[in-house]
């Protein structure tokens, strides 16, 4: 068994309006950060996954993202895996 550190990012598809991102961008502008634009807010998750191999871990994480963590109707996701060295 190996241990992987997984990071998942999920965000709204570009066609879907992101009111929260919009509001935060506005707030940044009001506070003097005019240089910020195109701000969008999504979710960031990290978790650890026990798996026999990298490829198995990948398959499982992919499945979790697809089935549970994101809703493909309006969201897109990306993830990274990193093996954790045993201490």
């Amino acid at each position, binding site marked *: 068994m190996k241990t992987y550190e997984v990071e998942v990012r999920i965000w709204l598809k570009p066609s879907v309006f992101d009111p929260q991102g*919009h509001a935060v961008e*506005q*707030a940044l502008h009001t506070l003097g950060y005019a240089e910020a634009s195109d701000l969008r807010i999504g979710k960031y998750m990290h978790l650890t996954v026990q798996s026999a191999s990298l490829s198995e871990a990948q398959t499982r994480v992919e499945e979790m993202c697809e089935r549970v963590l994101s809703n493909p109707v309006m969201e897109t996701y990306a993830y990274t895996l990193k093996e954790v060295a045993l201490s």
Partner: protein
Amino acid sequence: MLEPTAAQIRDEKIYRKLGLTDAEYQQVVEKLGRLPNYVEAGIFGVLWSEHCSYKSSKAHLRKFPTTGPQVLQGPGENAGVVDIGDGLAVAFKMESHNHPSAVEPYQGAATGVGGILRDIFTMGARPIAFLDSLRFGSLEDGRTRYLFEQVVAGIGGYGNCVGIPTVGGEVQFSPTYRGNPLVNAMCVGLLKRDEMVTGTATGVGNPVFVVGARTGRDGIHGATFASAEDPHEKERSAVQVGDPFLGKLLMEACLELIASGAVVGIQDMGAAGLTSSSAEMASRAGGGIEMNLDDVPVRESGMTPYEMMLSESQERMLVVLERGREEVAFEIFRRFGLEVANVGRVTDDGRLRLFFRGEVVADMPVAALVDEAPVYERPIADWKPPVPQFVPTTLAISEAWMQLLAHPSVADKTWVHRQYDTSVRASTVLGPGHDAALVKVPGVNKAVAMATDGNSRYVYLNPRRGGQIAVAEAVRNLAVVGAKPLAITNCLNFGNPEKPEIMRQLSDAIEGMAEACEALGTPVVSGNVSLYNETRGVDIQPTPVVGAIGVMDGIEHRVPSAPKSVLEPTELWVLGREDDSLSGTLYGELVCGGPAGDAPYVNLAQEARLHQLLQQVAGARLVAAAHDVSEGGIAITLTEICIASGIGAEVEVADGADAHGWLFSEAQGRVLVAVTSANADALARLAATFNVPARKMGELTGETLCVKLQGALLVELPLNELVATYEGAIPSFFVAEQLTATH
């Protein structure tokens, strides 16, 4: 990290960091007969904190009347309980979460709601409503906007999710709260009068359980910090995140467990978590508790006994079950997917004894922890508020009117309460927008009435009279909707009790409140004290907040604050003694730049008669609406009636009164009612029998608000302009979508 030894705690005065003074530490040593170890010193520190022990206020709280035929449970339990007839009872309490909300407003407010919710279902009551009483600085200030926005979102975030409607409350804005907002939450629950449970650990050998969330390292020392001088910095490490989903499951599971009859005693883990719940439950029973801390479900590894005992992780309860019925609890909690662990048992030796890894890590007399906690008769100084007399000004009436209407304390609060689920449970008969809320009791034609009130300007100007007014106004709101007032709860938000003038405010305000409770027949059955509300040495204005509860038999008798529609000729009457003094008013604050003069007029005997009259009026269904005169005076009360019913009015200033004064006076004990001309005579006769002055001051008509003085037009304001000002005031501060202002 190694824990300090008992000798180090003494020599390096580490006990000070744990919240104990030198003298208090000495007392601990005497009571124990030895030096306390780190766990013990920590436990004494939190239990003897202001927050848990009420050491500065206890002596004064004794002045409150707490009994009456309706009272089933007075102060001292998790919540007070009153009888509402038909074998039913209502449990209710109010609590503050000021300091946590100043640091992390969303979570501070949310966990405040969660905490008061647990206090209610702990009594075996099904929670049916929340109310919230909020105080902030001025909305011109960016940080205040952020606090306001997040606190409101947090209250909704928790209350909406657990499915209890937030049906009323208040929000006021004053520079005095800039660095120290107030967040007081009240919860009301319903139970069968003979099915009440309490937080008592009786029956030697009965098992003790921790149920709900796991214990983590969050919130350690919240209780001590709430009483520390600069809570802001220190509490940064003590932020707790509420879990309303778990809170809802815990509520359902506990109510089911209580209904099973297996529960001997139950208490929520609020401030000082496992420490206060176990010590207080043992103390109420006059016995002891033994716990094995290895069995406490923890969220993080390596937690020490000190951390477990002082953690303020949310959504946990301590339960004592009847021996042999453990399986009932296991079955229920398993079904809800909740943690349940047997951590100890009830003893009869009067000691709180804790084991960890086979060793006794703490062993203290329960009496010393709870009953014998220090009580301070703190010095009280003579004190007069440093304020000017009210001086009459030349501010034009229409201008004053609009300024008051636009003041966020007066303006429409829809921006706030539309973020709360006000109608879940499908029982809200009157929600936000009326003087009191009415929540229907399922299965019978009966409703519980509830309202909160408290005006710090009055208390600051005259603590005793201000205290009277706080109670009078809250209770009046119940009578206005037609309910019979029963009892009150309260939250006393004051400054630093180590200052003799603050103790004067506290002592006098309590005295005034007590007098009003006596006069109005509404004893105090629960409450909460929050002291050290100060920023950099500057105290807030004293702010006692009152939550009042009443009952209405026959919801068809309810009286809304404005007629829904006006189809017949409708007159406006003022009930109560008319006045034209501007001392202590919001008007006075606007023209003088701060509180000025003395608190407004109040007369408790008149007030009591008015309340009786209002109930009779409702019972006889004489009026279409009733709305009490509060901040901003008759001008504002009238405007609110007109806006809500969409019609103008024509009114006449009282004979011989000063027009400014008559419009903007905040003298207490006055109610405007809308009555059809057909019922007006009957109303006048009824008022006379109660010896309450009543005068027809005008009628609902047209599309403007007209005020006349001896027949001559004094001022005329178009209704649509009033609506725009009233409804636009608070939202206008949020046009720039200031979701995330600076922290």
